[in-house]
């Protein structure tokens, strides 16, 4: 594969996409607050559930959270989260939830107490815009005329999607460009990470997966060009690969978000989604700019880890996919199959509707968001799809020791009853047995917006779900964020401990727990 092939394959990385918006953007900066800013401020004044969408004004620190219940003494380590946390500069407010600057939250557990540190990732974009008190570069979902040199994706990188501590460094990840490295002790931002010479500013997605040997696997994509990274437990790059994927850029390549690994394969769902930033820059929003092509398939890319050029593609009915749960291989009479769970949506209501509306303090239905199981037979090339139920859930996680292996359980925030106030937030937590479909649930209640929850293994144990489930939730009545700790094998009884911050945090996307 030579470079020229790649050049012609580039088409939908954030950088490329935003080119259109900067060239066509007509919206300069007004002297009066934008409509998103005024409408949000008015709505947030009357709706306590909107508080986290205000964004954080500054870095945060709390030496000792208030503990309810009793923390497990064996639960020690650092719980990281990341999410869009600054939405406004000057008179402007971003028009899509995904646009905000990343802030890494770190909760440190020592078995008795919990401290918290939250710091904005000091990207070049963040520093320059803070200094100027205005937005200077185009964002994922807001057409902003570039007023600062955009020399590649990292000029617009918000580092806002996920955080993981690996090989002694914290990686704050985005989708279109580099991860940023932060110091685990201070959360000081060091720099953008270049994994190998000549790969500056390459897309490094936000959902890497750790294998049992401590290898961090990740992919990046730009249009139909795919890149795969294997980083060993010491943080060294073992191997990078590139390949072209067979998708029609008229229908695919707008957003390839998450990935799965199995023992031998790396798997990326490619939803039939395109993004039209040129239209967004002309002031259009929602489904006009983000298009889910209902006549094109969801394509699942299944590639051998050791040679991604030998990938197979499985086609499924059209569907938006953000997140996978887990995947594993099994071999039987009909050959080798890969079984994977993912959260699917046959509509684009969330990405093009709710995630825009919330930024002006408005509510739109988040649409379908259900757990599915796809079984892909590598011999026949056929895929079978099954759905558990129509209850909306998202942010699936599992016991990290079982990533890429057969596991019984997936953990998700979920809403099984209609909510009056909390726009597209979840009120409960669920553990589902992926084979039987049987679920156990805990209802946080109407005051909470429940975020992603992680499984943390009990040290020394190898039994699935022997350990804890840890996650954040925003409480609208108290206007505070807490971390709940559940016995992973029994969430129905509620948390065994809860640590309350004296403040609220912006809602985040994803995180990871590094055990001490």
């Amino acid at each position, binding site marked *: 594969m030579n470079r020229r092939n*790649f*050049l012609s394959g*580039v088409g939908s*990385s954030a950088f490329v996409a935003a*080119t259109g918006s*900067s060239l066509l953007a007509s919206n300069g900066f007004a002297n009066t607050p934008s409509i998103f800013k005024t409408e949000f401020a008015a709505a947030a004044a009357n709706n306590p559930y909107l508080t986290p969408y205000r964004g954080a004004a500054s870095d945060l620190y709390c030496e000792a959270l208030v503990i309810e219940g009793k923390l497990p003494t064996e639960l020690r380590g650092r719980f990281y989260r990341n999410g869009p946390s600054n939405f406004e500069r000057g008179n402007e407010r971003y028009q899509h939830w995904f646009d905000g600057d990343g802030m890494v939250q770190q909760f440190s557990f020592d078995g008795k107490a919990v401290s918290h540190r939250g710091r904005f990732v000091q990207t070049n974009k963040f520093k320059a815009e803070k200094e100027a008190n205005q937005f200077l570069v185009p964002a994922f979902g807001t057409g902003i005329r*570039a007023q600062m040199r955009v*020399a590649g994706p990292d000029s617009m990188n918000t580092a806002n999607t996920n955080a993981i501590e690996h090989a002694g460094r914290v990686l704050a990840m985005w989708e279109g460009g580099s991860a940023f490295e932060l110091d685990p002790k201070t959360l000081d931002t060091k720099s953008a990470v270049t994994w190998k010479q000549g790969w500056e500013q390459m897309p490094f997605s936000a959902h890497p997966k750790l294998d049992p040997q401590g290898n961090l696997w990740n992919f990046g994509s730009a249009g139909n*060009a795919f890149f795969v990274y294997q980083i060993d437990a010491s943080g060294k790059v073992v191997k990078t690969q*590139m390949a072209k994927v067979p998708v029609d850029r008229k229908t695919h390549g707008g957003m390839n978000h998450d990935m799965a690994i199995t023992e031998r394969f790396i798997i990326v769902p490619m939803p039939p989604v395109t993004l039209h930033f040129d239209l967004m820059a002309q002031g259009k929003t929602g489904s006009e700019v983000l298009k889910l092509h209902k006549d094109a398939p969801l394509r699942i890319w299944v590639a051998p880890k050791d040679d991604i050029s030998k990938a197979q593609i499985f086609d499924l009915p059209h569907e938006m996919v953000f997140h996978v749960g887990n995947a594993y291989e099994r071999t039987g009479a009909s050959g080798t199959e890969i079984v994977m769970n993912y959260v699917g949506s046959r509509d684009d209501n969330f990405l093009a509707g709710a995630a825009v509306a919330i930024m002006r303090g408005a509510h739109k239905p988040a649409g379908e968001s259900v757990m599915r199981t796809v079984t892909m037979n590598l011999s026949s090339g056929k895929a079978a799809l099954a759905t558990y139920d129509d209850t909306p859930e998202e942010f699936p996680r599992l016991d990290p020791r079982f990533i890429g292996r057969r596991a019984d359980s997936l953990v998700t925030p979920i809403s099984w009853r209609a909510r009056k106030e909390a726009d597209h937030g979840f009120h409960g937590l669920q553990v589902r047995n992926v084979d039987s479909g049987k679920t156990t649930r805990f209802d946080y209640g109407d005051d909470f917006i429940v975020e992603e929850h992680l499984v943390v293994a009990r040290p020394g144990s190898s039994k699935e779900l022997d350990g804890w489930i840890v996650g954040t939730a925003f409480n609208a009545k108290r206007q505070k964020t807490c971390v709940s700790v559940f016995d992973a094998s029994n969430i129905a009884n509620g948390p065994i401990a809860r640590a309350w911050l004296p403040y609220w945090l912006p809602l985040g996307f994803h995180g990871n727990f590094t055990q001490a």
Partner: protein
Amino acid sequence: MKKYLVAFIAAALVALVAWDTKAQTASACPTLNVTGLKADEGVLMIAVYTKSEEFFKKAAWMTAQKVSGASMQIPVCNLDVEEIAITAFQDMNGNQKLDMNPIGIPTEPYAASGTPAMFGAPTWKDTKVAYKAATAPIAVKF
């Protein structure tokens, strides 16, 4: 975007042809004031274009000079034109081309004269500046 990439490739190819490594020093030459360089690293590669249709294709004059500080002054002499456009890059590894990552994003610093767009490739239109009538040094900001 494709245009942008192609333009950079063209620039890289142009850079491969022979370079005039001696700075011209004749009097009454308009001077480029190149700023924002990474001090004392690599080689400053400059291409001067004199025609719209030759922009990024055929430079009227080129020079390569070892970077001696964060800013450098380069005289551009003996061109019988009213306007010129300058593109430049800092060749950090000395391979005489503008290196790019696998998706075509330059991995070495680049710059142009005039008021190049903040986003995308420079064009003749936004980088051209007065040459013969230049009264002050021509700015090329990295």
